[in-house]
């Protein structure tokens, strides 16, 4: 156990400080190159640097390479390759507007290294009832998992600090669950995601100095998905991600097709005179998590962010309860 503590500490420190120190110069470079977008939820004409995915992937790759130096696990290679591929896919989408098919298809391809490296166990573990062996079905699950987690995190990246703050809660929850299940190596391998998210949150929180962009959101989501697979905690990971899953579910069930947000004409929310957000009555607009939160009345961007974080903490508690239930058999 003691031999795991030193790599864990080194990788967590590296993950946090690489993002902490590379993000400010990245913001300067992006602003200088005019890679900025308007913050739609600010009264003034505020331009924010994008994409922040570059510092996020740097923090992940550096910390995971250090861990690979200690452990030489194929699981770590799977994280590095799939997450870097997801970053590249997101970066292409940040630079050039791609069709609705682009991200799901390419992210499915990005999941293939997990299979080729054999970094998975085809038993799917459920609380109370035990494991089920699904060798063929599990391959399909891997292919679907990365596009789902990637796009789920991307879909919740709608307000200042929400994607990174949500990721802090969900990823640390997943790490705690892996420790509860005594899967110590993968728990340590998962920790950098939480620390990278935490460091990025410092610059992403309201008022944002940088947006993660598709490259950042897909990097977060893809790494989360890979950890779920290599750690054998797919169900727990899905539970910790439930508020974001609800957002995607509400969106898809109201729109009834896979479509990019930018292609939707109806606006789910609008601004009041004092620039709070309120739900619209537009029947053509998609139902989203933010729209449901605003159904009770207008709120500030900060209040909505905290409402989402509270939901994430609630899901995190349910995920931890589920991890304890894994040890119980009916």
């Amino acid at each position, binding site marked *: 156990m003691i031999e795991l503590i030193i790599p864990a500490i080194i990788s967590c420190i590296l993950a946090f400080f690489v993002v902490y120190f590379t993000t400010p110069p990245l913001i300067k470079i992006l602003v200088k190159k005019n890679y900025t977008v308007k913050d739609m939820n600010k009264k003034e004409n505020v331009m924010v640097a994008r994409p922040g995915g570059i510092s996020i992937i740097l923090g992940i790759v550096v910390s995971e390479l250090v861990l690979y130096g200690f452990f030489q696990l194929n699981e770590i290679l799977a994280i590095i390759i799939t997450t870097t591929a997801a970053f590249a896919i997101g970066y292409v989408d940040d630079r050039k507007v791609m069709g609705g098919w682009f991200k799901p298809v390419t992210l499915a391809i990005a999941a293939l290294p997990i299979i080729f490296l054999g970094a998975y166990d085809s038993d799917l573990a459920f609380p109370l009832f035990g494991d089920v062996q699904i060798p*063929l*079905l599990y391959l399909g699950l891997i292919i679907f998992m990365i596009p789902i987690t990637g796009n789920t995190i991307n879909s919740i990246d709608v307000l200042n600090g929400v994607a990174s703050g949500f990721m802090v809660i969900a990823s640390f929850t997943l790490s705690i669950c892996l420790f509860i299940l005594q899967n110590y190596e993968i728990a340590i391998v998962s920790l950098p995601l939480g620390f990278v998210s935490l460091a990025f949150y410092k610059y992403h929180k309201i008022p944002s100095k940088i947006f993660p962009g598709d490259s950042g959101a897909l990097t977060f989501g893809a790494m989360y998905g890979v950890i779920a697979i290599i750690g054998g905690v797919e169900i727990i990971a899905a539970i910790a991600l439930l508020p974001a899953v609800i957002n995607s579910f509400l969106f898809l069930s109201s729109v009834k097709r896979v479509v990019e947000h930018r292609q939707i004409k109806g606006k789910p929310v609008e601004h009041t005179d004092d620039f709070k957000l309120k739900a619209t009555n537009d029947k053509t607009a998609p139902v989203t998590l933010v729209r449901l939160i605003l159904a009770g009345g207008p709120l500030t961007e900060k209040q909505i962010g905290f409402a989402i974080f509270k939901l994430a903490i609630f899901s995190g508690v349910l995920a931890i309860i589920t991890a304890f239930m894994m040890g119980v058999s009916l």
Partner: protein
Amino acid sequence: MKSGLYGFLFAMWGLIIIGGGIMVVLLGPFSIQQYGDFHWIITSGIKVTIALILVVIWILILSKLKNYIFKKELKF
């Protein structure tokens, strides 16, 4: 409103646990042996089909639940 969201989260969690139970109890022990070397492919194919049907049923239940919990809010 917010209590509705927490209720919906809790209901989704319950559905996941129950769905998992069905997967383990029904799909886990399911096996076909009389097709020689290909039995595992046929077994897996049937398991995939049942799992997909379960997913569709799960989404339908969730949709009904969403309409019930958010019936006031979904009058947008």
